[in-house]
């Protein structure tokens, strides 16, 4: 079998050389096809915008060569074919016979192998089976490549358009990646409530859809601008919601709404008083009282609107100007008479150093830090007409101690304030409070609230800014 190993070695050498030649042939063929197609593509790219046409053409050429190499692997000649190839070079079918009868041990087969091995001693494989370079095929291949590069080098407007489109696509890809990254981040943020997350995701998905259907760079700018605006609006909306929630919370906490209602009531009462003095000494009907009440409420909220003013004026038998003047006078009277909201802190109470808030023995209904009612230090202090028995009790307000409800509701050791009990309930006789003190208390309370709840930092900043603005 030793002689056959030598024979097999020669056969394999022949096969290797055949494979190389096949690779050169098929590689040139595939490369030529690839480069010609690539050249054709770039030729078309002179008139039609085709992104990356040059690289595509080059890729097609390389792909063609690789395809040729791939096919070579599949078409790699077998040992029999290699043996026949060697036999055709003067071995007179000695190789193929030896290969087929390699396992036979009869004298003739052994003699045949020995004889073939001897023949191979004078069989230079490299010379007998030379690797022939396919110069013609390679020439065609190079021609195809040259055609491709020439087409690539020819400048044209279509190529510029294609380049611009490519840049645009890169931008879109980059923006898309960023948006998708942002979506992942938002999805992972637990501090954002699901509703906000969903809103943001919808917004980003819309933007992605727009990006996919975008046609030019201006469109990209517009899309991103729209996204920016939507985000700002969403941010504002969310901030408003949080701020609204905070203010609602503060109003609930500090009974601001009640104070406003009280203010409206005071204005209505003052207006009634004015109306009686000026236009009806005999008294007011319920209808007129209701009209004044509505006018006062409307005036307190937004100023009188046309229809409301007309309706109230008709009921009261006044002109619109008269009614407006009446209400302004009533408002002025309240201010002059010290009838003011504690939240305004604009009172001119001579005893105005009293602490704000209800005392322990104060009005249980209000339970807020807002003082209401007439200023007992003012000679022009407002008193509701027609009130019932009036009693006054001392109310002790602590010295600017804030931070908990007990302090806000006052203590028995502070300076005294007074309230008047009327038929309609309690009415403060006026406690003069320092504006900064009240603002400080409100601020502290707001801070406490926003730190005790899960509130986004942005909203916290808004609340803080608001209350710090009050202090200024």
């Amino acid at each position, binding site marked *: 079998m030793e002689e056959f190993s030598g024979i097999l070695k020669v056969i394999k050498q022949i096969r290797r050389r055949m494979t190389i030649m096949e690779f050169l042939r098929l590689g040139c063929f595939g490369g030529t096809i690839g480069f010609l197609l690539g050249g054709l593509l770039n030729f078309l790219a002179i008139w039609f915008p085709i992104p990356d046409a040059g690289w595509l053409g080059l890729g097609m050429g390389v792909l063609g060569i690789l395809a040729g190499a791939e096919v070579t692997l599949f078409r790699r000649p077998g040992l*029999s074919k290699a043996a026949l190839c060697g036999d055709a070079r003067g071995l007179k079918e000695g190789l193929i016979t*030896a290969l*087929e009868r390699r396992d036979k041990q*009869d004298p*003739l087969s052994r003699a045949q192998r020995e004889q073939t091995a001897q023949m191979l001693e004078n069989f230079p494989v490299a010379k007998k089976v030379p690797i022939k370079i396919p110069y013609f095929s390679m020439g065609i291949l190079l021609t195809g490549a040259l055609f491709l590069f020439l087409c690539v080098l020819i400048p044209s407007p279509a190529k510029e358009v294609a380049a611009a489109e490519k840049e645009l696509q890169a931008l879109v890809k980059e923006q898309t990646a960023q948006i998708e990254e942002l979506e992942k981040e938002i999805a992972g943020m637990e501090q954002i409530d699901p509703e906000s997350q969903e809103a943001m995701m919808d917004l980003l998905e819309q933007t992605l859809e727009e990006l996919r259907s975008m046609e030019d760079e201006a469109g990209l700018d517009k899309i991103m601008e729209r996204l920016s605006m939507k985000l700002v609006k969403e941010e504002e909306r969310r901030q408003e919601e949080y701020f609204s929630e905070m203010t609602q919370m503060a109003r609930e906490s500090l009974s601001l709404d009640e104070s406003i209602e009280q203010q409206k009531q005071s204005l209505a009462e003052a207006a009634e008083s004015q109306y009686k003095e000026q236009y009806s000494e005999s008294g007011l009907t319920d209808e007129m009282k209701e009209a004044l009440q509505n006018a006062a409420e409307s005036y307190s909220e937004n100023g009188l609107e046309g229809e409301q003013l007309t309706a109230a004026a008709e009921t009261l038998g006044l002109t619109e100007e008269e009614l407006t003047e009446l209400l302004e006078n009533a408002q002025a009277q309240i201010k002059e008479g010290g009838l003011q909201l504690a939240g305004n802190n604009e009172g001119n109470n001579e005893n105005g150093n009293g602490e704000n808030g209800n005392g322990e023995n104060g009005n249980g209904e209000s339970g807020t830090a807002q003082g209401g009612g007439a200023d007992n230090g003012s000679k022009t202090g407002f008193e509701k007409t027609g009130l019932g028995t009036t009693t006054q009790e001392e109310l002790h307000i602590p010295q600017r101690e804030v931070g908990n409800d007990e302090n806000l509701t006052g203590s028995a050791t502070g300076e005294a304030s007074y309230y008047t009990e009327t038929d309609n309930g309690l009415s403060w006789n006026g406690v003069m409070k320092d504006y900064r003190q009240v603002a400080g208390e409100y601020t502290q309370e707001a801070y406490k609230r926003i730190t005790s709840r899960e509130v986004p930092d942005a909203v916290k900043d808004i609340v803080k800014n608001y209350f710090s603005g009050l202090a200024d």
Partner: protein
Amino acid sequence: MVENIEQIKSVIDKVNVVEQEIGKAIIGQRDIIRQLLLAILTDGNVLLEGVPGLGKTQLIKTLARVLDISFSRIQFTPDLMPADVTGTNLIVNEDGKNQFRFAQGPIFANIVLADEINRATPKTQSALLEAMQEKTVTSGRQTLRLPQPFMVLATQNPIENEGTYPLPEAQLDRFLFKLHISFPSLEELKAIMEVTVSGKSVDIRPVLTGEDILAMRRIILEMPMAEAVAEYALKLVVASHPEQAGAQPAAGRYLQYGASPRAAQAIYQTSRAKALLEGRYHVSFEDVEAVALPAMRHRLVLNFDAVSEGITPDDIIREIIRGVKDVH
């Protein structure tokens, strides 16, 4: 079964000596001598065709002298009867009783020269059929085996048609080879003159025995032959059949019938023998191509186009070889 390679080499050497011995009496015709030997070594009959005076009969007689085996010559004539070839039953008086006894004819020899075989009637020609194929002779109820090795070497003259009977296809198919004896070159003719006219005697000694021939036949049967080469031989035969898918255009155009399977057998065996006589232990495509002509030429039946255009079987076979080689 071949015992060892030395035995093979010994027989090959003897065959080469046979060629040399024949070469003493027969000038030129190297290829014919080689092909004749191939037929002898592969148990085949040979039809030699040539114009008169080319030494066909002389060649066979010389061969018979070189081979140390029995030889008989039958001159085929129109009045030759089958019994004149095979033998006949004679009434013999033995022990006072007359009884038939078979008297063997001239066919009972190792080498039978059927000289000018086409001059006998088809009836007589047919007397050779059994002997050529089965190597037996049947007379009445008796079948007798012919001596081994047995071969018929026949000659015929292609240019004389009058008084001749063309061999039937079945008869032709039984010849392994049909050899064309060509006219010798000037040099060869000069050498022939020196031998034949000068009165010099040629000393020819027998070299190869019947046993040697039979041994050689066994060796040839075991001779390695690659599948591709064997397939090539078969394709040649198939390509000669106009109706076959692998038929070559020349066959389709000029042949009525292609070569029989005996042609494939002949190519197989003689190509092996040729390789062996050349000292190779494997058969090449060239060996197949070399024996394709003598093995196929008498087995092709030309159509009218070929005859009218003067196309010979050899032309068609060469075309077939060329066509099959390109495809192969």
